């Protein structure tokens, strides 16, 4: 499983183009950074007020005032900048964020995303997720293909409270890479050793598969 998640993070890392400004959500997305070359030209944004996130640091080398939005002690790189929370979300809402990678409870075939609340079970608040999902120029999701009980997370419609409507463009899972297009989910890559039939079985909505062989990751 951890291997599969590493592979998915490595695949998702190829989504990041040189020069992009990128926000990586808490959880799986955070791991993507480990799969970028050390000198890759990218500006990572932390919504608590930092552009140019550097590597995470162990406590003995950490700066007590320097965390990312997930609370991890991080570092700066040459050219990093600090700013307040209003400026941070001004960047997000005014379109300066090229890409965000988010986790998901559910993604619907129309691109709807639910990732912040499970009524009666989990309601910590939406944090910055809603603005990232609604305003980043490109939103991709990193998630396991099914939940712990084996139920599909890619579905016809979201049943949970939405984070944002129609925002997801691409989904990276442990089984597949799937694009969200006007006509629904398109399978574009498969994980090594996973069959298209297995992916269809684990997906809660129709999956459009081209005739031509798909690459795997």
């Amino acid at each position: 499983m951890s291997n599969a998640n590493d592979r998915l993070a490595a695949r998702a890392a190829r989504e990041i183009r040189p020069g992009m400004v990128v926000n990586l959500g808490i959880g799986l997305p955070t791991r993507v950074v480990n799969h970028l070359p050390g000198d890759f030209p990218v500006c990572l944004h932390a919504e608590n007020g930092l552009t140019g996130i550097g590597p995470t640091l162990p406590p003995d080398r950490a700066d007590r005032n320097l965390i990312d939005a997930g609370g991890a002690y991080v570092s700066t790189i040459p050219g990093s900048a600090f700013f307040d929370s209003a400026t941070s979300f001004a960047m997000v809402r005014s379109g300066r964020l090229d890409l965000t990678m988010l986790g998901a409870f559910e993604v619907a075939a129309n691109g709807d995303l639910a990732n912040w609340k499970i009524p009666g079970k989990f309601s910590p608040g939406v944090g910055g997720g809603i603005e990232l999902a609604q305003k980043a120029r490109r939103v991709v999701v990193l998630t396991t293909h099914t939940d712990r009980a084996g139920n599909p997370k890619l579905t016809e419609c979201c049943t949970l409270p939405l984070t944002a409507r129609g925002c997801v463009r691409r989904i990276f899972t442990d089984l597949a890479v799937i694009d969200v297009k006007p006509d629904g989910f398109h399978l574009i890559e498969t994980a090594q050793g996973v069959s298209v039939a297995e992916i269809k079985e684990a997906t809660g909505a129709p999956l459009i598969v081209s005739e031509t062989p798909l690459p795997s990751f």
Partner: protein
Amino acid sequence: MRLTDKQCSIEDAIARIQDGATVMLGGFGVPGTPFALIRALVRHGARDLTVIKNDANEPDMGVDHLLRSGQVARLITTHLGLNGHAIDLMNKGRIKVEFNAQGILAERIRAGGAGIGGFLSDIGIGTELAEGKRMIEFGGKTHVIEPALRADVALLHAARADSFGNLAYAATARNFNPLMAMAADCVIVEAEAVLSLGALDANDIHTPGVFVDHVTELAALSEEYAVVQR
């Protein structure tokens, strides 16, 4: 011309806070949280408070002390994920919680500080976050009207201050602090160091002292600021 000295003791500053007050607290997680001022507010005992803070810190830390002492009636926040105790109080109906999208909370506070009544935003439209909010068509688009937020008191943490209340924050400890500094009738600052006038470069001041009413130098840094493995 010379600028006035706004230094006073934590106790004198906090004594101004009345029952029923709305209190903004700086900080995102640990950095920028005014832990010493919060402890003084617990000692002071003002009740029925509306607290505005990005998060509720962690159990037995910062905001959580105010929750445990029963001083908080209402919490306006964005995320309580690190404080299960706060979520528990919310679920039991012991405190009212109003969740805002994080950037919308920041912007509402800044609007209060800018002396405007509110702003138009499309954030949350189509989700339960927008439910119950007044909508308006403007410029060919649908917006929700987000009301400005102001507070009676803002409690802030700065890395460096001068005696007039000019402030500089360190790294990501800045977060909501400069916004709240603009948006409260009484702004009280704990600073790791209070320097003499002129010690801060006029170009590098994050909060001009005009916004600040009282500044106090911390005798020692709160234990919460120690780096720990989380």
